[in-house]
């Protein structure tokens, strides 16, 4: 198991920004879905950038505040910490100067893991 912060409970919701190009049609369900490519680590890094919903709430912020400004075209999805941990991932806090709720999902994400991660998420802010 990679680095993991046990103070983040399994039911904690991790919010992931999704660029429009990672949203594709799903004829099987007659809906839109998020491509497995949205569950990649950032280039040259060992983590996938997310935001802790609880941390946003603790600041009195709306979750949609992370998809405003430069990110206004992005959608927002939620996965649970427990779900990502079930695929050999860890979750750590990674506060940024401009975003204290920032966190990382740590661990290798090969194509198999990415597809598994993409099987269970909820839309928070749907496709624009």
């Amino acid at each position, binding site marked *: 198991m990679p680095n993991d912060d046990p103070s983040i409970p399994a039911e904690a919701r991790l919010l992931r920004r999704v660029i429009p190009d*990672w949203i594709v049609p799903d004829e099987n369900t007659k809906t839109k*879905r998020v491509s497995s490519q949205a569950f990649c680590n950032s280039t040259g890094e060992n983590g996938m*950038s997310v935001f802790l919903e609880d941390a946003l709430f603790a600041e009195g912020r709306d979750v949609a505040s992370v998809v405003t400004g430069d990110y206004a075209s992005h959608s927002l999805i939620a996965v649970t910490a427990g779900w990502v941990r079930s695929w050999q991932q860890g979750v750590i806090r990674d506060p940024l100067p401009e975003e204290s709720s920032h966190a990382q999902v740590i661990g290798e994400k090969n194509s198999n893991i990415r597809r598994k991660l993409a099987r269970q998420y909820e839309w928070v802010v749907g496709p624009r």
Partner: protein
Amino acid sequence: MSANAIAGPSFRRRGLSDRDCAYFVPPTHVGDLSRKDALSSPPVSNELIEADAALICSTWFLPTARSMLRLARLPAGWDSRGAPRIERTVVENALLLLAGILEVQTAPPAIVPTVSGGVQAEWHMGGLNVEIEFNPSAEALVSVDDLQGRSEWEGALRSNIERLQSYLPRLESA
């Protein structure tokens, strides 16, 4: 984007075949290629895609080429992080591989960028989830999730072409 075909004026070129070719400018509708639409000289454009007429008339080729070329125009950092640009050679290689695998009636895949500078073609139809990932420094990978047969597999594209082709009838547009 322009495309060339085996009708019309001949030009010296490189491409998917070494046959004579002609150049057309979109919008070129499927099944609509005509010699009268051919350009009189090769266009000077870095968005030129070369392919045989039969390929251009396929259901999937033009939408796929357009989608890939659009992604090749994204700037570095398109993911708001450190993703590199998608090089044109990646797009060309992806189209070349797909041309050797897909059928004329195969539906156009959705095309998404990868953070390693590649592209991924994916279909979610016919009770299947199919992904083919093309990255600049790795072998192309294919995965198939058969929701009807409740089976799932993945592997290198080159060693699974026939296996993938067995699913193509389920990836045709209605």
